[in-house]
């Protein structure tokens, strides 16, 4: 089919441009910060010719941060694409329908009861936190699904119930947050707004398995998402066991957003923006949409992180806030246009 060929060519072109942009922003991100390190110095540092100070800054601080931005960007984008596909609602996003706040609440509980007053994560808790976040995300998702269930789940109910669950967890978060001491409180606020500045290699290791396992599974399920997007009746007619496939996909989305939230905090709107932009570029078929959305997610988060770093020198603002300021107006635009 010639049309398929031309769309595939488009996919390759779009992907190569995106990968090029990611590499460019990646190096830009390594250069920027209180100490400027030029691209040549970066290459020197990694080939062992540069100064040890540069190598330390790059290897221990900037590199893990950029890697985490890329991983979270990929994870959130895929989670958002799955949620939009299975709910047949272009406005679904892990942040809006309460999955992020469920994960956030679990992490706040963990910090409050287990970790005590020291917010700075110890070596063990880096690996435990994702599981707490995941449990919270899962509880939120199950609650949303059960409450929205009435002879099946309609997209409208799913989103409305999600908004309700979001407020409930928001209220619980505020209760516990206000019982913290001021320093923990500020840390918690930064974390909840979505921040990757405390990134280290252990966070990369904590996040990497989730991305490496769940993203390929999601990509391999593209056919199910395509069919579910057509509507339940049609999908059933085509022989998809709807509830099972939807359940599996929902679990993947929950796993991805839970893991991302545990490391990056409540970064919302990324899961909304990336799939939308991808759909504009390569169309609604998920075999093309998913990989492009992942690339766009990584690029968006890397860029937003640079903006967050350089917007106010001295006091970095959480990257999640930058994304919300970009994402919310776009969301409103979609709302008006729809």
């Amino acid at each position, binding site marked *: 089919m010639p049309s398929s060929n031309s769309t595939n060519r488009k996919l390759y072109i779009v992907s190569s441009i995106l990968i090029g942009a990611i590499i460019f922003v990646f190096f830009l991100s390594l250069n920027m910060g209180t100490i400027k390190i030029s691209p040549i110095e970066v290459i020197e540092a990694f080939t062992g010719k540069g100064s040890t100070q540069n190598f330390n800054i790059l290897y221990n601080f900037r590199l893990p941060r950029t890697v985490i931005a890329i991983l979270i960007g990929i994870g959130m984008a895929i989670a958002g694409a799955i949620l939009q596909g299975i709910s047949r609602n272009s406005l679904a996003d892990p942040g809006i329908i309460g999955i992020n706040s469920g994960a956030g609440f679990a992490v706040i509980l963990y910090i409050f009861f287990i970790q005590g007053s020291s917010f700075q994560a110890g070596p063990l808790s880096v690996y435990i936190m994702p599981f707490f976040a995941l449990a919270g995300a899962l509880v939120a998702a199950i609650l949303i699904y059960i409450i929205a269930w009435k002879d099946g789940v309609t997209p409208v109910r799913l*989103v*409305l119930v999600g908004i309700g669950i979001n407020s409930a967890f928001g209220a619980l978060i505020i209760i516990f947050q206000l019982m913290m001491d001021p320093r923990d409180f500020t840390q918690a606020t930064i974390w909840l707004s979505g921040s990757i500045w405390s990134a280290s290699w252990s966070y990369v290791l904590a996040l990497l398995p989730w991305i490496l396992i769940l993203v390929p599974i999601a990509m391999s399920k593209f056919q199910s998402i395509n069919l579910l997007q057509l509507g339940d009746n049609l999908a059933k007619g085509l022989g998809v066991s709807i509830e099972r496939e939807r359940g599996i996909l929902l679990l993947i989305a929950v796993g991805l957003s839970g893991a991302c939230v545990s490391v990056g905090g409540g970064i919302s709107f990324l899961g909304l923006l990336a799939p939308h932009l991808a759909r504009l570029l390569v169309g609604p078929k998920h075999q093309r949409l998913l990989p492009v959305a992942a690339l766009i997610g990584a690029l968006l988060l890397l860029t937003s992180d640079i903006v967050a770093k350089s917007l106010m020198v001295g006091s970095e603002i959480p990257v999640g*806030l930058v994304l919300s300021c970009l994402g919310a107006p776009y969301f409103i635009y979609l709302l008006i246009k729809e």
Partner: protein
Amino acid sequence: MSKSHSIESEKATVFRPKAATLVIMIGLILLFFSICMSIILGVADINFSTVLQGIFHYDSTSTAHQIVYRLRLPRALAAAFIGASLAVSGAIMQGMTRNALASPSIMGVTSGAMFTVSIAFAFMPFVSNLTIMLFAFIGAGLGSALVFLIGALSKRGLTPMKLALAGTAISALLGSISTGIALRFDVAKDISFWYAGGVAGVQWINIQLLIPVAILGLMLAFFISKSITILSLGEDVAAGLGQKVGFVKLLGTIVVLLLTGAAVAVGGTIGFVGLVVPHIVRFIVGSDYRLIIPCSAVVGALLLVLSDVIARLIHPPFETPLGAITAIIGVPFFLYLARREGRGL
């Protein structure tokens, strides 16, 4: 067709004045007792006779009298008036938009107030209580204007889902900017305490501003209640019955802005009162706003005074945020409405 029409008109004439009288009378009695309870209960125990003395024979050298007169009485009054204002503005919003989910907490009111309040905290050192109130009042108007604007711009108007999503998006946007400001200027905790909502720190000066605005708003609300009933049948019907729809909507919007603005300015974010109370009242007294509005005022006042007592008692001597209490009461109700996909007017 004719059958559905008759159901429609039957529904429109549900009017239970006896039930409403009962709700108002029992409600006022309970309100009186809960205000007394609110004054008596707390970290310092004060008995009833001291309360009466503190109010009617105030002795400025007595600590108990001071607690009663300077702390507990304004607090109880503020809770009552805020509850009444939020409930009535929720009722008017629901009637005007014919949308079961309309209420101050999802209309961007509170996030708008948070936005302007964070600006006040950040850029005005030693900002006074009154300035904060003024800023919150302006912000409440700004937030709801934005949400209304989105509704007006979109093609099919404010459907329940669109309303909820527009509110969420505006909250996310204004909330992010406020958090950014808060972190940059190190005023995050001040703002969060304000945001969490509560009447713990209310002083007489706040009351003196709240009560006149609230009473003006409530009186206006009663005045337009008949028109709101007609409007709630649909704009076409209302226009057909000779109503000046635009004028009623304008008046309704002014009432909503006065009431929610005053409530948010004094109490911060206290969500879901405006959503839940009108629905409960509608269930008891029917769909006529001449009854819904006064009953909502009484029930809203009662609910908020009681929630404030709960907020004090859960974890003494710490105050649990009042907004969190009302959210926990209100969210299950919201979910119930969401399951019905926003129908239920």
